[in-house]
């Protein structure tokens, strides 16, 4: 509070944005608007910095300070992207719970979890795997025990 005036944080924002495609429309607009940030400036900066990746959805973490300044960090793609890559899917099932569009082995999920774990501090590896399994279920991807069954 005295000498080293640390900026006071007022909010943290998590978003999924396609590389190079940030626009003021939702989800960016409402989330940043909520915090009173300059939406256009963020979009332009994000797009320029992610210009090298093409079409990959990226997770973004923004920490907003009291003076409306902010820091943002890029994290990797979301679980659904990894699962789609692993199963070769373009998109998940249309009617979740009624359709199976692919299968993935638990071992593979575990490998994905290890990649994602650093992005989700505070969650155990087991928790990350459970999150992935839930994601699979919502995408219509069946989880099997062994790779040979996939």
């Amino acid at each position: 509070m005295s000498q080293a005036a640390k900026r006071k944080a007022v909010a943290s924002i998590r978003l999924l944005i396609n590389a190079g495609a940030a626009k003021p429309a939702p989800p960016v607009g409402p989330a940043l608007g909520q915090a009173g940030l300059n939406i256009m400036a963020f979009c332009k900066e994000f797009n320029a910095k992610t210009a090298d990746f093409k079409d990959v959805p990226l997770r973004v973490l923004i920490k907003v300070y009291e003076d409306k300044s902010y820091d943002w960090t890029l994290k990797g793609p979301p679980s659904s992207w990894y699962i789609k890559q692993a199963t070769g899917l373009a998109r998940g099932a249309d009617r979740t719970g009624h359709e199976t569009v692919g299968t993935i082995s638990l071992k593979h999920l575990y490998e994905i979890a290890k990649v994602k774990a650093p992005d989700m501090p505070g969650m155990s590896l087991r928790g990350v795997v459970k999150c992935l399994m839930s994601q699979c279920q919502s995408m219509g991807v069946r989880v099997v025990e062994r790779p040979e069954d996939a």
Partner: protein
Amino acid sequence: MSSSSSSSSSSSEAVTRTVLGWSAAMMQSGVSPAGMHAFSAASAAAAEASLPSSLCATFSAVSGDIAEQLSDCLLGLGAQSVVVQEARAEGQPEQEKFGAEAGLWDSCQVLAHFPLEHNVDETVAAVQDILELPGLSFELEEVVDQEWVEQIKASYVPVQIAEGLYIVPEWSEPADPAALNIRLTPGVAFGTGEHPTTKLCLRYLAGQDLQGCSVCDYGTGSGVLAIAALLMGASSAVGTDTDPLAVRAAEANAGLNGMQGRFSVVGCGANLDDADPLLQLEPSTPRLFDVVVANILRGPLLELQPRLTAYCRPGGRLALSGILAEQAPDVVAAYSPYFEDFQVSTEGSWALVTARRKQ
């Protein structure tokens, strides 16, 4: 259903940078009543933005320990965005939190946005199970676009680009009526004048002799660059953008500056495979321009090199921006087979590359 996206339960007050109502923001910037009327008329024109666009689930009184896990998990299961803020009950002192080193507030409010069709109950049940949480209660409501749209519009203030060159929102009075004032109407298209790349491009144009020139503004956004060029003496301009909202905004801004007869705006695809946007114009329209300006991004600038080169007449001028300084060499390299006299200027971390088409 309520349309506020920053709702809070009656027993706590969210401490956050709340978005000022547009009228309050306008009054602070000293806008005349006539100006306010113009703004509200323009807002009414954007009526389609008042339909719900997403769902917002608000979790109140979440402890600091689990707020981060909750956020990551929600994002992983379909939330489009998650905001974590301090939740402070009325009368309590502010909780302190400094930078990234300190832990979270003891009590947080978590707001997660979802697509309208998302089954939020199912997701929250899944999150509870995954994180092994006793019980998560939340309020769910629909969010209307209008609020964030209005926040962008309210941020429109006159901007001075250079000596005697300003960008002035439709409802403001120019500080210097004798200066070159580019009028812009509120909208969500890129090109409000604040961004360093807009300024770089505008200053470049202001330093050129544009009398009687034809201009192509690829990725025109609000149309600001093309309109500026026309006001500076160019005879005609063509603008194109992938965003239909930008096309409409650019056309509206052309009218605002009396340039509607000299500025044609068409939509275009995002890739080089997509049809040449010029094909939508009258066959008699020239396909070569004296000046080609494109304030977009590194990727599109590299991909569109053949097209932008073809648009620029021999001896014509090229101005490319929307790139970071470290991306400039790539852009120069891509265009150097066909252009010469390259110059790179920067403002902050942003760069502008200009050149002349070889004869």
